């Protein structure tokens, strides 16, 4: 009984710790992204701390609730969006540290949890009673339905390989991915399949965090910021934070699935520092991996291409990326059978 109460308190404290890490790091990541994008466009760009100033300013502004809006849903949506995004991080291993809710949920649960922030945005959009927001919410739903299949196919294919090699493991848990990095267990067909799946997952991430070219839901030039059109002040700031955390979540998921490597096993024979020192080194290495993943799935794509039309987004996800992920599934199936 006592341990049960202790466990609950630990989970609450850990959730606070996770948000204390994820929110500032997400904002810093946004700043790095804007700085890198600016340099790629041959300009100076805002300082790396710019997102912190933006959020501080948004929290000082007036929060307007439109007269026709369903006010409780309109105000609840940003909080729900941020809370559900932070919750996903409790299930993802952060570098050397195992997930806080280890054993309570697996990749399938993460796939379901990933839809909740989008659903919160959709609910907020419909609740704000603006035609622009309604169009944005509908587009967000179209986007959500489009990237769900390639995302699921990616996870299933990799889990299939792991479960065929290690039947005793709980294959869907992310710690199984960490114990058996997929690049080490794949044959030649599987390596090709895994590379295809990595590219698919990077492009799915771009849609998941609604960045150009898949930002049809908040296209500011066509539908005036879409779902966020009526939001201002604190509510908009919460959505801004949720967006920053979601970037961390998606990149942490990619790192956990594809690059669960740590520096310490490689360096321990040569350098000797205490184990907490290795934890810090591994964690910093993990942050570096996150930034590299974010660079490729967000900054690089964002400055390279313009926004797709709604039908083009659906075509990319349901057509090309689904085909690619099915092809990779066949390659990995060949790998499992041979």
């Amino acid at each position, binding site marked *: 009984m006592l341990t049960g109460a202790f466990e609950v308190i630990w989970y609450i404290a850990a959730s606070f710790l996770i948000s204390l890490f994820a929110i500032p790091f997400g904002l810093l990541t946004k700043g790095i992204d804007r700085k890198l994008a600016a340099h790629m*466009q041959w*300009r100076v760009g805002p300082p790396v701390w*710019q997102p912190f*100033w933006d959020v501080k*300013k948004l929290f000082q*502004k007036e929060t307007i609730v439109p007269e026709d809006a369903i006010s409780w849903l309109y105000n609840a949506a940003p909080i729900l969006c941020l809370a559900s995004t932070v919750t996903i991080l409790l299930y993802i291993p952060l570098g050397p540290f195992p997930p806080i809710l280890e054993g309570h949920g697996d990749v399938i649960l993460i796939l379901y949890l990933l839809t909740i922030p989008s659903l919160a945005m959709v609910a907020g959009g419909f609740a704000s009673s603006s035609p622009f927001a309604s169009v944005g919410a509908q587009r967000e739903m179209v986007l959500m339905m489009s990237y769900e299949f390639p995302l699921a196919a990616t996870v299933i294919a990799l889990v299939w390989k792991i479960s065929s090699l290690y039947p005793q493991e709980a294959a869907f848990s992310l710690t199984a991915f960490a114990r058996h990095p997929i690049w080490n267990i794949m044959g030649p067909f599987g390596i090709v399949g895994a590379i295809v799946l990595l590219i698919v997952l990077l492009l799915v991430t771009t849609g998941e965090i609604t960045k150009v070219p898949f930002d049809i839901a908040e296209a*500011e030039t066509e539908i*005036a910021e879409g779902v966020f059109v009526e939001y201002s002040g604190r509510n908009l700031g919460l959505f801004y934070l949720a967006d920053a955390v979601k970037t961390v979540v998606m990149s942490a998921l990619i790192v956990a699935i594809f690059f669960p490597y740590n520096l310490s096993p490689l360096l321990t024979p040569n350098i000797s520092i205490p184990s907490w020192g290795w934890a810090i080194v591994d964690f910093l290495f993990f942050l570096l991996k996150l930034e590299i993943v974010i660079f490729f799935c967000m900054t690089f794509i964002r400055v390279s291409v313009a926004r797709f039309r709604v039908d083009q987004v659906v075509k990319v996800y349901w057509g090309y990326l689904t085909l690619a992920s099915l092809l990779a599934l066949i390659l990995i199936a060949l790998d499992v059978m041979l």
Partner: protein
Amino acid sequence: MPKLPTKSFDRSLWVFHVNTGSCNGCDIEILAALTPRYDVERFGIKLVGSPRHADALLVTGPVTRDMEDKVKRFYEQMADPKVVIVIGSCGISGGVFHESYNLVGPVDKVIPVDVYVPGCPPRPEAIIDGVVKAWMKLERLRREKK
């Protein structure tokens, strides 16, 4: 007395641009201020798509009869604290259109204006300078309030 913008507005200013009947000259100069050559994003200035998100309203052109109620609504839709910056001679005095039968008048007859940037059209440097003037004015107002 409306709420004064705090210090964090000096670091992050989101602007919404509305054309109340200008000839497009000033609009192009505003866009030029956003290009890599002038790059106002380094000061934290960002163009947003909704007046709800904006801290500053950039108005170009004299106010035509059709735009009068719309520019008032844009102003009222913005969240406090907010500033209004008029770009170009037309918005200040009516410019070459000052005798037109179609005009309600300069922008400050319709909504309260904080900063005027003259020119036909003003250069991007002048627009950036106008924003800096707005920040200086806020600084002064904050000091007077204390």
